[in-house]
């Protein structure tokens, strides 16, 4: 429509843009597709190399080994339990505190906000925290997964910011009808906060599901408290050791009848450990994008 130089320029740019996007897509997705292929390939065959996007010798053995019972199976359920319990508790308690500081008339609004937000920057550090956990007798106890991480200042700010966008009139009319703050919070505010609660639930659940350091630090001597990520971490260190050891990588070894290797088990646990998140997050995407924008741009 315009001059010729003008009509050529968008084509060049769009082609360049498309190439960048496709490259990014490949770089992001390839490691997963490769891991899926490895997880379905016979372990001793994988050691020969050359598995890219498709398994050479199909097998369910790696997954059977993961779910056959025993430590990894148990660890899976510990991960599920801590994720569910901590998410529900944290969501409830964080939003209750967020509600109080979303009320402009609340006399302690400012001090509470400052006290909580400061914790984002101020941390006593690893050693004092370790002694606190020890003094509270939480070492080697399931509660150590849930109790220390119940509140995050960031999540509280996100919830508070959302609550402040709700129409003030709702709360006033509830007050006129004689509802106290407990009633207002439970029956009016909380149901309206579903989008932001879904977002924060995702954040908390992902954090819980991915956590391994608390197991490592506080519960490593109790095998029945091991989590999926912690088992994966143990395998990662052992597998990288055997990777550098050429005798293990010898696929022609007739003694290697066992189809399962640390490498193939690791691939299948990686898939099991990431699948729940991959299934859930695309559905919550529009909420967390919106939530982050609210929290980020307006703060």
């Amino acid at each position, binding site marked *: 429509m315009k001059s010729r130089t003008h009509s050529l320029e968008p084509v060049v*740019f769009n082609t360049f*843009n498309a190439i960048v*996007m496709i490259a*990014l897509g490949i*770089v*992001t*997705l390839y*490691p997963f597709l490769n*891991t899926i292929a490895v997880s379905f390939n016979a372990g001793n065959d994988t050691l020969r*190399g050359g*598995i*890219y996007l498709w398994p050479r010798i199909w097998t369910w053995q790696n997954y059977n080994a993961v779910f056959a019972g025993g430590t990894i199976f148990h660890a899976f359920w510990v991960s599920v339990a801590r994720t569910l319990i901590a998410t529900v508790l944290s969501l409830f*308690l964080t939003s*209750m*505190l967020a509600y*109080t*500081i979303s*009320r402009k008339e*609340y*006399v302690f609004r400012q001090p*509470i906000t400052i*006290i909580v937000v400061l*914790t984002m*920057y*101020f941390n*006593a*550090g*690893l*050693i*004092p*925290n*370790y*002694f*606190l956990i020890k003094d509270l007798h939480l070492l080697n106890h399931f509660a150590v997964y849930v109790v*220390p991480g*119940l*509140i995050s200042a960031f999540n509280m700010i996100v919830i508070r910011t959302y609550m402040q966008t709700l129409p003030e009139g709702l709360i006033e009319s509830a007050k006129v009808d004689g509802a*106290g*703050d*407990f009633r207002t*919070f439970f029956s009016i505010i909380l149901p309206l906060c579903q989008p932001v609660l879904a977002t924060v639930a995702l954040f908390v659940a992902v954090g819980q*599901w*991915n956590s391994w*350091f608390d197991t490592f630090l506080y519960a490593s001597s109790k095998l029945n408290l091991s989590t999926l*990520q912690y088992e*994966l971490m143990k395998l*990662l260190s052992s597998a*990288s050791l055997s*990777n550098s050891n050429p005798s293990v*990588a010898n696929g022609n070894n007739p003694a290697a009848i066992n189809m399962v290797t640390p490498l193939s088990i690791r691939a299948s646990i*990686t898939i099991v450990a*990431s699948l729940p998140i991959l299934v859930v997050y*695309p559905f919550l*995407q529009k909420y967390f*994008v919106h939530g*982050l*924008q609210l929290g*980020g*741009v307006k*703060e």
Partner: protein
Amino acid sequence: MTAPKSSFLKRMRSQKQLMLMSLPMLLYVFLFSYYPLWGWTQAFQNFKPALSFSQQEWVGLKQFRFLFRDDTFLLVLRNTIAMSFINLVLGFVTAIVFAILLNEIKTRLYKRAIQTISYLPHFLSWIIVTGLVANALSVDGGIINVVLMKLGFIHEPIMWLSKPHYFWGIVGASHVWKEIGWNTIIYLAAITSIDPSLYEAAEIDGANRYRKMLNITLPGIKSIVIILVIMNLGWIMDAGFEVQYFLGNGVVVDWSQTIDIFVLKYGIQIGNYSLATAAGIFKTVVSVALIFAANTTAKRFGEDRLI
């Protein structure tokens, strides 16, 4: 004086329920975030867990003096700052460029697909990510070596993770891979909130796409970039722990160890709690000082600020 005070008390009395709702969590925050600060006293003692507080031996600044004369700690400090800085710069540049490119995509479905893919790695644990990175870089059949060899750039596989000088770059690249999509969200929002009439006016003036990016989009997101830089400066002592812990090995240890790994090693594994606490205090104090310094600087330049 008395009038506002009594109205304050009156308001307090009418807000019993709000106070009751915030009390449990407030106690919780004090117990888990502020009470452990008491543990900082350990850094000024020769702390022995078996002894009670009054029995501890006080040594003043001895631990701190030791830290700053210790070659390992100085290396660890260098590594932490270097890797943070690399992550910060790489993270910002790639996210801003990616946001601008994403913004130019007009097909909704295509844009959403790219976004969904790019957010994905953010939700994975560092254990999984470092596992994927180690796989990609491995000597036998790692995709990076395979591709470089097929393209003829190298003739035999490079042992990426055993080369000390590559370590910082690998950590930086891993961070970009994991967080580029996530970091983009906020810039994309900032770009979308730029007044479209600015672009229309520029178009009438004959500005092309690049001019518009340079003179409208970039200035339009300047203030959000500054806020985020300030926030991230406060975390410069947090170069991360997991990446270095999982990808590091004996060969690259002089380039891979960070303060957090140092604290873990001295504190939990060797049992020198006082020295580890001192290192932790140093980290927190520097972070808070940086936050306030950056905040004041931003205020002086008349930009939006964090606090």
